[in-house]
C-alpha cells in the first residue's frame, strides 16, 4: 500500500465506524476540496452509496459558483441534501459588518447547532484536518460535543488504536473527522489520482486563485498561476504561506479558531 492507499483505508474505516455506531448521522459538506474528497471516500466506503444526508450550512454569503457546483453534484450523485440557513439571524441583518467572529458564530456555528437540534443528529461527519490550524491539530477522530455543541478541549477522551468514543449521554453528539490525518498536499494528490470533480474556484484565473473556500466577504484569493491539480501540488511544495492565510476570521485574535471551535464551529 502506498501513502494515499493508507490514508484512504483509514478514512473508510472511520466512516464505516460512524455509520455503524450512530443512529442519526449526517455529513457536513462545505463544497470545498476537503469535504468533497470526503464525499468521494464515503462513496467508496459504501460501494457507490452515501447512506446519510449531506448538510450544507448556507450563510448566504458563499461564492455563487459554490452553490451552482453544490446543486449540480447533489443531483449527479443522487444525494440527500439538507441546506440550512440561520433565517432568524439573517432576518436581523447578520453579516460580516457586525464583526467577523460574531458573524461566523451566528451564521455557521449557530446555524449548525440548529440543524443538529432539528434533526437530532447523534453523529456529524466533518472534513477538518490536523494540519490546517492549531486547535484542529489537537482534535480526536471522534470528538464529543455537549447539547450546546461546546467542545471541552481540556478534557478529551483517550483515543487508542481506532477505538473511538461511541458512548455519550443523550443530547450530546459526536463530531467524526475521517480525514483528520490528511494534509493539504495529500488532498490534492488524491484529487489528482481519483480525478475528483471540484469547484472551479481553486484554479487560477488572471493570476489569482482560492486556496481555501469560505464566505465571499471573508475569503481572499492568493497570487497563483496554477491552473491544474498538478500545478497546484507543485505550488504547495514550495509555499511558505499557511493554507488559511486568506481567511479573515482567523486573523481577528491569536486564539480566534480555538474560541470559535470551543463553541461548536467546525
Amino acid at each position, binding site marked *: *500500500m502506498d501513502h494515499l*492507499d493508507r490514508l484512504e483505508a483509514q478514512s473508510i474505516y472511520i466512516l*464505516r465506524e460512524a455509520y455503524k455506531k450512530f443512529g442519526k448521522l449526517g455529513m457536513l459538506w462545505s463544497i470545498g476540496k476537503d469535504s468533497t474528497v470526503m464525499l468521494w471516500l464515503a462513496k467508496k466506503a459504501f*460501494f457507490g452509496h452515501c447512506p446519510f444526508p449531506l448538510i450544507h450550512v448556507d450563510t448566504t454569503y458563499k461564492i455563487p459558483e459554490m452553490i451552482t457546483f453544490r446543486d449540480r453534484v447533489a443531483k449527479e450523485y443522487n444525494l440527500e441534501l439538507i441546506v440550512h440557513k440561520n433565517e432568524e439571524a439573517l432576518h436581523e441583518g447578520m453579516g460580516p459588518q457586525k464583526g467577523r467572529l460574531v458573524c461566523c458564530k451566528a451564521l455557521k456555528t449557530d446555524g449548525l447547532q440548529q440543524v443538529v437540534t432539528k434533526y437530532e443528529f447523534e453523529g456529524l461527519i466533518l472534513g477538518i484536518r490536523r494540519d490546517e490550524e492549531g486547535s484542529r491539530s489537537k482534535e480526536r477522530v471522534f470528538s464529543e460535543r455537549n447539547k450546546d455543541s461546546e467542545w471541552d*478541549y481540556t478534557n478529551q*477522551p*483517550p483515543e487508542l488504536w481506532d477505538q473511538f468514543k461511541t458512548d455519550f449521554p443523550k443530547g450530546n453528539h459526536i463530531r467524526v473527522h475521517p480525514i483528520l490525518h490528511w494534509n493539504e498536499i495529500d488532498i490534492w494528490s488524491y484529487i489528482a489520482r481519483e480525478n475528483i470533480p471540484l469547484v472551479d474556484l481553486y484554479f487560477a484565473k488572471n493570476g489569482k486563485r482560492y486556496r481555501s473556500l469560505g464566505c465571499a466577504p471573508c475569503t481572499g484569493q492568493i497570487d497563483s498561476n496554477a491552473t491544474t491539480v498538478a500545478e497546484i501540488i507543485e505550488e504547495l511544495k514550495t509555499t511558505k504561506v499557511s493554507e488559511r492565510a486568506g481567511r479573515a476570521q482567523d486573523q481577528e485574535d491569536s486564539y480566534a479558531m*480555538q474560541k470559535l471551535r470551543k463553541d461548536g464551529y467546525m
Partner: protein
Amino acid sequence: MAIAREVLNIVVVGHVDHGKSTVIGRLLYDTQSLPEGAIERVKRISREKGKPFEYAYLLDAFEEEQKQGITIDTTRLQFHTGKRDYVIIDAPGHKEFLKNMISGAASAEAALLIIDANEGIQEQSKRHGYLLSLLGIQKVYVLVNKMDLIDYSEEKFNEIRHEMNEFLNNLHVYPLKYIPVAAFYGENLASRSDKMPWYKGEPLLQAIDLLEKDQGLEGKPLRFPIQDVYKFDNRRIIAGRIESGTLNVGDEILISPSNKVTTVKSIEYWAEKDKQESVYAGMSVGITVADEFFNQRGEFISHVNNAPLSADTFKANLFWLGKRELVKNKEYKLKLVTQEIECEILSIIKVIDATTLENIENASQVKTNDVAEVIIRTKKKICFDEFKNNQNTGRFVIVDGYDVSGGGIVAGLVEEIQTASKFSQNDLQMVVNCFDEYYYVLSEGTVRKLEGRPHTFSVGDVMPTAGRTYEYPENFNVLDIQTKLVAKVRKSKLVDVVRLSAYNYDSLPVIDARGSFIRVESEEDFTQFRDELQRLDSTKVTAFANKWLEFTKFRVIRYLRDIKSPEQDYQI
C-alpha cells in the same frame, strides 16, 4: 503528480519541562517546515506574555497551554527529510494528562524519550518508558537534553544512560540510541555539535532516517474482523479492515467464534480501477461469500488452518486512566477491534508501580495511572491473539460508563481455564477436544464435558492417550473436520500434522478432533468419506455424523453424582 512518500509517526515523550516541545519546535525550524510568520507569531506571544522566546509556543496551540507553559493535549506536526515524511506527535508530560500522552503514543511506531540532563531521570521518564513497552513501541531513541546545563559533560551523560538503560531493559525496551542534545540551540539535532566532540553518533535528524518502518503484517495469519454487513444492490457485502494477512478470491475461510466455513466469492469495489483479486493488511475492503450465513460485526474471518484464539477468559496487562478505580465484580465494556462485549475483572494478579517497578500482589483495585496484570472474563467467547503474535488483534480498551478508561494487551490464555488443547506443527494448528472427559451427571440428568488439561502439543510430544473416560490406541490419526488437517500419533507421540489433501490412508484408526472414531476401515471407505467431507454443507452435518462417527468406540461415559465430585460412581 506527487509521488507518495513513506511516512513515519514518531511520538515525543518524557517528564514535564524536559523539553519535548522544544525538540519538536526546533526540528520544524531547522527543516524549514514552519509556515511564514510562525516564528514572528511566537515572538509576539512571548512579548505579550512577558516571557522569553520558546519554541514550545509553536505547538501549544491552546491559549491555556501558552499562558501556563504546559502541554495539555497531544498535537501532530509534519516535516520531511530527503528520505521520507515524518509526523511528530507531541505528548504532554504532566501526569494528569497521561491519557492524552497515551493517545498520542498509541498511533506512533517510534518514540523519542527526552530526559533533562540537569534534572536526570524523573517519575514520568520512567512511566513513559514503561508505557512505551506496553504499547509495543520498540524503536526508541533517548535524547538527553539541555546538555548545555551540565557543561556538555560526557560523564554525566553516561551516568544517565546507564541508569535509564537498566530501567528500560528490565521492561524489555532496548533503546536503539542515546543522543546528547541541547534542543534550544539546535545542538546535535540537525547537525553535529562541536561542543560535544566525544559524541560519535549521528545527530537526531540523521538518526531518525535510520529507523526502519515495520513490515510484515501482510505475512502474518489472516485476521479480518467484520466491521459491518451491508445489503446494497442485492449484494450482501461483509465490510471491514484486514488487520493482518492476505485474502484472495476463492479462499476457504473460517468465521470465528461461530466456526462456520465458506469461501470468498468476490472482492467488491466502487470505482472500476479499484477492482482486485487479492487484498491485504491495512486495506478497508468488502467481500461477498459463497454461503449466506448470518454474519455480524465482531466476528473474525481467518483461514481455516490458522484461527485466532477464542475464549472468554484471558490474562492481560493494562494501564488504567479512568476517573474511578478499576475494581473486580463490576461490569465494564471491552472493545477489541470490532468486538464489543461486557466484561468483568476476574482477578487482579498484581499492580505495578510504573516508576519503581515494585509489585503489589493481590490488590483490590487499580487506581488512575496504575499499570496492572489482570484476568478478564467476557460475557461470551471472543476472538483475539496474543499481543506478541499480533499487535492489532492483541490489544483492547475498557469502557467505564461513557469513557474509554483503560487500555491493555492480551498476555495469553489462562492455563486452567483454557478450553481446548492444540496440535501444532509450524503454521498448521488444530484445536482438539479428544482429551476432554465426558460424564453423565446424575443430579442434572445430562452428559457433561469436563475439559481436559489444555496444552499445546508440538511434534515429539507425548499424548495423554489414556484418560478416565477414553483410551486411544498407540498408533492412530486425528482428523479435524473443520480445518481438514490430520495429526499422526505414533507410539503415543505426535509425529506430524499434515493437510488432509496430503494424507494417504494408512490402515490406522482415525478419530475426529472430539475423539469419535471415524468409520473408515479401508482405502475405499476413506475415499468415500473424503469425498463426502469435501461436499459437506451445513444442512447435511447430522446425516454425515450419523453415518461416519462413532462416539463410544474409544470412550465410556461414566456416571457422576454431581459436577463437583470428580470420582465417578458407576460405569456403563
